Every structure is written in C-alpha cells, then in structure tokens.
C-alpha cells in the first residue's frame, strides 16, 4: 500500500513492537497529565477517560505486518489495505457521530459480517433563544457536555492468511458552545444559523489478538493512545411548526459543515484535520393529555428523525445514516431560570434507531 511506503510510516512500521509499546505508554502518561489539567480547567470533566483509536490498532497491525515481512521476505496484502486515511476518518467519524450538533443520546449496535460494535452517546446541554429588541432577528446560544464510547470488534485476515481480531474501545468527552442568529420568516417558519465550537478528548485502547511472534506463536498486544480535537461547526437550520387546534406539528432540516483539527502526541497519524458534513431531517407531532402536575399539563409526542453523515465512509464505523422513531411525554413547566431564558418543557422519550446493519435505542430525558 502506498501509504506504508512513506518514510515515516516505514519507521513506525519497522520499529520493534516492544519499543513501540514502551513509547506509547510513556506518551500516554504525559497525555493523562494534560487531560487532568484540561479537566480542572473545564471543571465539568471529572474523570479521565480511556481512549482507543483505530489508528493505534492499525499501527500495531503495521508493526505486525513489518514483522511478518521480515520473516517471510515477501510483499503483504490484506491488512495492509488499510490506509492512514482510514485511520483518520475512523477516529474523526467517531467524534462527529457523537458530538455533532443536533444529535441526541443513543445506543447503537453494528452487526456486520466482519464487524460487531457497540456505540453509545449521551449529552447534557441547553439551548435558548434570546430576543434582541429593535431587531427582527434573535440570538441563539447553547452549551453542552457530550460523552460517548465505542467498542469495536473487527475480524481481519492478516496478509499471511492468519485471522487477526481487533478489539478497540474508544471514549470521547466533548464540551461545546454555540452562538447563532435566528431569522423569523413568518409566524410558522424560522431560519437559524449557528456556529459551534467544541473541544474533545479522545482515548483509545486497542487489543490485537492473533499476531504471530518470531516463533510463529499467536500473541495478544495492547495499545493505548489519545488525541485532542478542536471542532468548528457551521449549521444552517430550517424550522417549521403549525398548530391544528391543540396538536402541534414540527418539522426541521439541519445541515452542518464541520472542520476538525486533531492533535496527538503519541500517534502522528492523528495530527490531522478534516472537513465533514452531516444533515438531519426531524419531525415531531404532539398533543394534549388529561394529565396535570402542579396545574401544569403533560403532552404526548411522537417523532421520527433521519441523520445522514454525508461525508462519512461506511468503513469508518459501519454506517453512514440512522433513522429513529419514538414517543414520549413532556411536562410544560414554563420557568425562566435567572429570569433570563425560558424553559418550556421537560420530559422523557423512548426511541428505536435503525439502519442497514445498525440497531439501537434512545431512552432519555428531554428539556427544551
């Protein structure tokens, strides 16, 4: 593969495995210290997360391949079809499918011929519209803390024919802030443009099972590494709503362009950047119930959402789109914390997520 022939890649590739592991471990500790500093600074990140990236696994694969090359003295195929680009897109895709604007909590399972993975994401955040007096447009802001994890199990065939199992766990924590403007076109329709800045901490742990050592005995190798990512997302949203007596229909379309810059001290392949785009279509229908709590009404709701990770390769995570349908209840509390921003509803919802080779659920608390 061409990427393996670059000088840097060959250097990594041909580094003895134990040296590579020793280096990786040393740099990992340095990065833990960095993360602790970041956690204190941000205050909300209370625990150190373990990050695993596909790149580590693939680097280890490269090491394996180089060892095998040395033993057999013949060119390799198979595993070496994986490129640096695959490594980068996989790591960034995981971050994007966790922390992109508009995504909600989810638990996903990918079940494919060669791949089984479990992914979850969860977010705690709030967005609000602020009226700007003497202007037609209004302001919009939001803050959010997002966490997610992926456990990916991939069955591969080494270039020499033996099966190799890659077992990866990746964890990410993101803190994001959004600022934007809302343009009301009429009483049923608004356009919204938002700029979102996010910082993410990504940790990867990889276990490679099936590597042959110099005596052709299978071994198990473990790698840890990390990366920090800064993302800038520009979003354009179109929001429509209409009331039919006490029933409300809401439709929205969202398009995000995301620029991600990744930094890693222990994995040079993850010192990279990427442009991605995602799109979402959301629909929601709600109606009254006879339930009240503290004289405040409850409303039922049903919803259907489609998310399309437009630029994402299917090989990155095993999917490029998700469809979700669900239902829930919302309580109209109608409060105004700090006399600043209105908080209309709190509720809970249950959703089913599906796509080709993907199944999942979304159970969570909603606030808006």
């Amino acid at each position, binding site marked *: 593969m061409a990427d393996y022939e670059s000088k840097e890649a060959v250097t990594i590739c041909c580094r003895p495995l134990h040296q590579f592991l020793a280096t990786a471990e040393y740099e990992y500790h340095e990065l833990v210290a960095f993360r602790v500093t970041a956690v204190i600074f941000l205050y909300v990140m209370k625990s150190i997360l373990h990050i695993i990236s596909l790149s580590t696994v693939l680097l280890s694969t490269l090491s394996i391949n180089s060892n095998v090359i040395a033993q057999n003295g013949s060119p390799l195929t198979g595993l070496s079809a994986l490129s640096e680009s695959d490594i980068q897109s996989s790591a960034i895709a995981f971050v994007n499918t966790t922390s992109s604007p508009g995504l909600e909590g989810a638990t996903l399972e990918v079940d494919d011929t060669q791949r089984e993975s479990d992914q979850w994401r969860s977010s705690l955040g709030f967005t609000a519209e602020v009226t700007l007096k003497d202007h037609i447009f209004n302001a919009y802001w939001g803050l959010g803390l997002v966490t997610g994890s992926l456990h990916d199990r991939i069955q591969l065939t080494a270039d020499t024919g033996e099966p190799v199992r890659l077992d990866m766990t990746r964890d990410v924590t993101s803190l994001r802030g959004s600022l934007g403007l809302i343009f009301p076109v009429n009483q049923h329709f608004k356009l919204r443009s938002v700029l979102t800045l996010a910082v993410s901490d990504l940790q990867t742990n990889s276990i490679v099972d099936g590597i042959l050592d110099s005596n052709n005995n299978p071994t198990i190798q473990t790698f840890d590494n990390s990366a920090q990512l800064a993302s800038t997302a520009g979003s354009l949203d179109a929001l429509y709503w209409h009331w039919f007596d006490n029933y409300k229909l809401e439709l929205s379309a969202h398009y995000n362009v995301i620029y991600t810059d990744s930094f890693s001290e222990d994995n040079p392949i993850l010192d990279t950047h990427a442009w991605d785009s995602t799109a979402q279509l959301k629909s929601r229908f709600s109606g009254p119930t006879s339930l009240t709590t503290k004289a405040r009404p409850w409303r039922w709701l049903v919803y259907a959402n489609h998310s399309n990770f437009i630029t994402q390769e299917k090989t990155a995570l095993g999917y490029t789109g998700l469809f979700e349908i669900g239902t829930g209840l919302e309580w109209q509390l109608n409060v105004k914390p700090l*006399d600043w921003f209105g908080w209309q509803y709190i509720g809970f919802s249950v959703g089913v997520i599906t796509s080709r080779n993907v199944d999942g659920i979304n159970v969570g608390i909603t606030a808006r």
Partner: protein
Amino acid sequence: MINLPFKRQTKRIIFFTVMCTVLSSCVQPSVFKAEDYALIKSNYPIVVINGIDIEDTYKLDLEAGENSLVVVYNTYQYDYFCTFSWIAKAGTAYEITDQENNHPLTLFRWHRKNGLLTTRLDPVNPLECTQKPR
C-alpha cells in the same frame, strides 16, 4: 466524600457561596409605580395601550383593571399586530413573549419564585393577530 486538603475545601466553599450569592441576586422583585398598579414587560414592542397609539416600548406601568394592548411580532415576511385584553391585578407583573404557540405571542403572569427562578403562569392568548405584509 473526597478527602481534600483544608485549603482547597475552604476555597471551594467560598467559591460556591459567592456563586450562589451572585446567582440568587439574578431575579429581582418587580418594582411597581404605586399600590394600585401592575407592571408589564414585553419582548416585542407595545404600540397601542387602551386604544391610544404610543411610541414603541417594552415595559409599562398599568393601572389595575381591564387593559388592552397591541404588541407587534415582527418577522421578515409579515408584522403581526396582536391585541391582548385582560384584567390586570394590582401588584402583579405580566410578560408577553413568543413560544411558538398557536398565536405568535402569549401573555403570562410573571411570578418571582425565588432569587434563581421565575415562572410563567396563566397564559392568555391574544384576542386576534392581524397580519400585515412588511
């Protein structure tokens, strides 16, 4: 319980005390012009009060009793002139805002629950909203 050094615990307690003090001063009680007056705040300009045109304003002292207001909800396609009529109680604050409801604007009774929180109660829809192209 996390076992922290005393100094760090003290700093943390001071920090939270200061934060709570600052935040609890966010919601100020409403100040009324006189005992028999109510107060209304609007996120959108009030242009007519009890049938009389006024300059755009966002805050008004109202005499208790039946009052009528026209408030404009501006959009890029139309202006919506919404007429509210209700009986204002003395010493009570009201608020007009948009919540993507059936009508462009809704009138609420504004209630200070504590230093951190206000609530919007007793929603009143406008009698009518007249739509005019911009």
